[in-house]
């Protein structure tokens, strides 16, 4: 694991893993979509709209997963000051923001026919919106500071402060009386969902997770290359200045 903290070794590993991971994403999402549309039966209460859950729930899980990755990487930036930790955090933010956006939009599109409204200011929905805003804030912070070290440290502090929102999202349905239903998959008494609906949900969740990892690795590779290009361009400028002197 420690050897992977070397950017060059990390890039070598990424080059080897990406083709296999891409194939896994295609297989999992293809199977998941087939199960979602052609195998899963309609729910006795939700009817056909249960199919929205097969993308809404994995997107919501990955929205929280993405922020957890950023928070762990923020610790790496602040404690060990390792540049790869900052790269991991920076590149996870746009992916996490996209999955949060997907979770919010698909939730709204499910809410209209089921609840009669696109949006309510209940604890779960509001805390997810706060998560989306946190992601946007982190992206803006990284974009607004030129010096990579300073930007990384500032973003790491914001990420760790914002990490308090993750348990709030998870337990909001237990702590407050919300319109959003309580946990029905990961709960102490086991899932309350029928296996016919649970299987496509898990396959889609695995596909979405593989997609997240794939995009994150690709984005990390691009970010490492961007930093190398930046360093080389600085060298070029220094050389030009030396030649003139």
């Amino acid at each position: 694991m420690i050897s992977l903290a070397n950017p060059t070794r990390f890039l070598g590993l990424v080059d080897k893993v990406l083709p296999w991971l891409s194939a896994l994403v295609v297989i999992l999402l293809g199977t998941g979509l087939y199960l979602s549309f052609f195998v899963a039966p309609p729910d006795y209460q939700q009817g056909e709209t249960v199919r929205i859950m097969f993308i809404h729930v994995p997107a919501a899980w990955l929205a929280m997963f993405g922020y957890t990755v950023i928070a762990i990487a923020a610790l790496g930036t602040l404690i060990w000051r390792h540049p790869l930790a900052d790269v991991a955090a920076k590149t996870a933010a746009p992916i996490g923001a996209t999955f949060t956006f997907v979770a919010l939009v698909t939730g709204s599109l499910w809410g209209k026919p089921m609840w009669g409204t696109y949006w309510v200011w209940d604890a779960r929905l509001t805390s997810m919106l706060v998560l989306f805003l946190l992601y946007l804030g982190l992206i803006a912070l990284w974009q607004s500071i030129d010096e990579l070290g300073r930007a990384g440290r500032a973003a790491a502090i914001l990420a760790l402060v914002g990490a308090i929102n993750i348990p709030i999202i998870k337990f909001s349905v237990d702590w407050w009386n919300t319109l959003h239903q309580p946990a029905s998959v990961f709960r102490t008494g086991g899932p309350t969902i029928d296996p016919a609906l649970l299987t496509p949900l898990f396959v889609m969740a695995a596909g979405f997770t593989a997609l997240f990892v794939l995009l994150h690795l690709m984005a990390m590779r691009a970010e490492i290359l961007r930093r190398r290009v930046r360093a080389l361009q600085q060298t070029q400028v220094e050389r030009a200045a030396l030649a003139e002197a």
Partner: protein
Amino acid sequence: MLDLGPHASFILAAYGVTAIAVAVLVVTTLADDRTQRRKLADLERRGIRRRSATPPKAAKTVTPKTTPSMTAPPGGETIETDPAEATAKKPASKRKPAAKTATKTAAKRKTAAKAKAPRTRKPRS
């Protein structure tokens, strides 16, 4: 055709938004990756490369006469410019003559030897 019932538009809209969002993410990530690779290749073609990068075959045969300039990029890796090209681009008037450098080195060696030599005290009379 799959019958999605009276709420088909909501279901299709949800899948459509997800597909577009994921497609945008994939395309931008791929495009960024390619752009950075192209920029890096372009810089390396001009002789500006990282220390750990494999130098081109022509540069391998040239013995560097100057200390390569090194900078520590934010990525945490040490990089260096191509020493052969750095020497070649320096104007002749700015280069140090070889003989002068050799004399300086000899003088430095003499000073170092003097410093290393054990000090002897003069006996008191």
